[in-house]
């Protein structure tokens, strides 16, 4: 079953003044358990596509289905709840809550989901352990390296048990060692726990690791490469 189904999606910015066609009818499907990279040059529509898949923006036309639900019809409030329950986000600049510890950052998303306290406690510690951060759970983001912060962000994204994780240039601010560590962890999660990952990236190391690469140019999917 498709986790993500994008059907002929267009996005036009500044509709009343100057028309900028960010997406020109993109269509594709992503199945559960995929490890997919969306690549393309700057201005190709990558980020717009990711925002629309992530329910952060609405398409001008076309349809986006997440696990069978058409999210283009949801109200803003419904969309917030939908994102909380179904989508995990990893951002380029980590975007952790600076006043919370690593563990509290991971628990935070489960708190929004109103999970029991005991589950929050157990799951946050387990996820941070899996990320190799068992000894840093009580450190605040400022006390962690970039790579460690991004691993906390992945743990936070996983904590909500989402249908898929959307990662916008997750390695852009990391050095090669941290990038390699992060990619190994995400690949492991994908392989062992069937977590679906969708990246937007310029990073060749991420592209090499991906098992499917969607290339976008001028708002259209121009290449869909599936690797073994």
């Amino acid at each position, binding site marked *: 079953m498709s986790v993500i189904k994008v059907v002929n999606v267009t996005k036009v910015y500044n509709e009343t003044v100057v028309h900028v066609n960010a997406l020109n009818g993109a269509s594709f499907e992503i199945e559960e358990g995929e490890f997919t990279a969306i690549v393309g040059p700057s201005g190709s529509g990558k*980020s717009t596509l990711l*925002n629309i898949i*992530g329910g*952060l*923006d609405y398409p001008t036309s076309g349809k986006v289905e997440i696990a069978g639900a058409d999210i283009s019809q949801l109200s803003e*409030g419904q969309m*917030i*709840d939908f*994102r*909380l*329950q179904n989508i995990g*986000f990893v*951002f*380029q*600049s980590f*975007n952790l*809550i*600076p*006043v*919370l510890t690593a563990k*509290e950052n991971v*628990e*935070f*998303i489960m*708190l*929004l*989901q109103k999970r029991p306290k005991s589950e929050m406690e157990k799951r946050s510690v387990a996820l941070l352990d899996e990320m190799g951060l068992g000894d840093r759970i009580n450190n605040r983001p400022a006390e962690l390296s970039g790579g460690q912060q991004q691993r906390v962000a992945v743990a*936070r994204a996983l904590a*909500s048990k989402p249908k898929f994780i959307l990662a*916008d240039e997750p390695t852009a601010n990391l050095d090669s060692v941290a990038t390699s560590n992060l990619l190994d962890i995400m690949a492991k999660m994908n392989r062992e726990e069937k977590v679906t990952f969708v990246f937007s990236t310029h990073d060749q190391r991420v592209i090499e690791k991906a098992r499917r690469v969607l290339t976008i140019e001028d708002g259209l999917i121009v290449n869909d490469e599936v690797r073994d």
Partner: protein
Amino acid sequence: MIALIAWRNVWRNRTRSIAVIGAVVVGVWGLIFAFGFMNSFIADFVSNAILREYSHIQLHHPDFKKDHEIKYFIPRGGITLESISQINEVKAMSGRVLADGMINSPKTANGVRVFGIDLGQETATTHLDSLIVEGDYFQSISRNPVLIPKSLAKKLKVKLRSKVVLTFQNLEGDIIAGAFRITGLFEKNSANGGINTAFVRKEDLQNLLGLSNNIHEIAILLDKIENEPLVIARIRNQYSNLLTESWRDLAPELELMQGQVKINMSIVMAIMMLALGFGMVNTMLMAVLERFREIGMLKAVGMRKGKIFKMILAETLYMALIGTPIGMFVGIQTINYLNRVGVDLSAYSEGLKDFGYDTIFYPAIDFSMVISIAIGVGVTALLASLYPGIKAIKLNPVEALRKI
């Protein structure tokens, strides 16, 4: 956890938060100080006017006050006086004879209201003896002694032991005059500062006017001001033939003044709260704009608008909740200290005394007033968080995250 995040957010920029908390402390302290001072100022004025001038209740013949004609005395005044003195709540009372007339010195003359008083009763009721600044309280002169204000003595160009002539109309309407000798000069410390008054012994004035034992006025001082409605109702019931008035009827300007001071205090409070509110709005707006990416992320990952709003609200309230008790504590301590030692305004004493104020004030404040200040700060913080809160929930997560 929202509360925890809000609390920790308060301390992200310590200097800024401490500045806002400091403003709350100073604001609350300032209001408590100002209210305490104004409170004692007006309480002092009212209590002086009651103690020195009006007493709590006055009784007259119903027609006496129209023209102060001496024929309108209180029927069986002595018996009335005796009967009222039996009321438990009555602390002191004074039966007086009143006559408007002229006071003449060898140099000049002046209009004057002359009170014939019972020396003991008047001391107990108005502490007239405590106002004497030169001479004595009817002791050094045995025949027709008179007390006049120092200012009037200056105007008449007379001094202690000088002779003055008091001229009135008697019961028959004939002009009569009596020679009196000045036994003491008193400092006018009265709300009714404009009228010249002179005090003589009751029996001297009664003899002069041919009034035998009759009196025109009974002034009653109660043990507590709160008992006034109860006592006045009882007296009115018992002496329906007399005009019974409270200090509020006798000096409506005092109540008006109390009301005006309350309005002034409300205006001062509103201005303070407005200034505080703008400070808080500014700080919280800066905090929101500085964190627009973080707030955008919170919205992106699924934090509802209501929770974001609550977080901003909590941050503002925390600052108010830290500052308010400190301000209350410092304010109450300041007032308590000043209440013990007093605030000496003798540098302005001339002007103050003319208006019936004491020169040393003892500021005091009701706890209910302190609570209303605290509630005011809370409401201000609540209102101040609205705009930054709305700004935060209106942030578009895509725009907030775009610059990442």
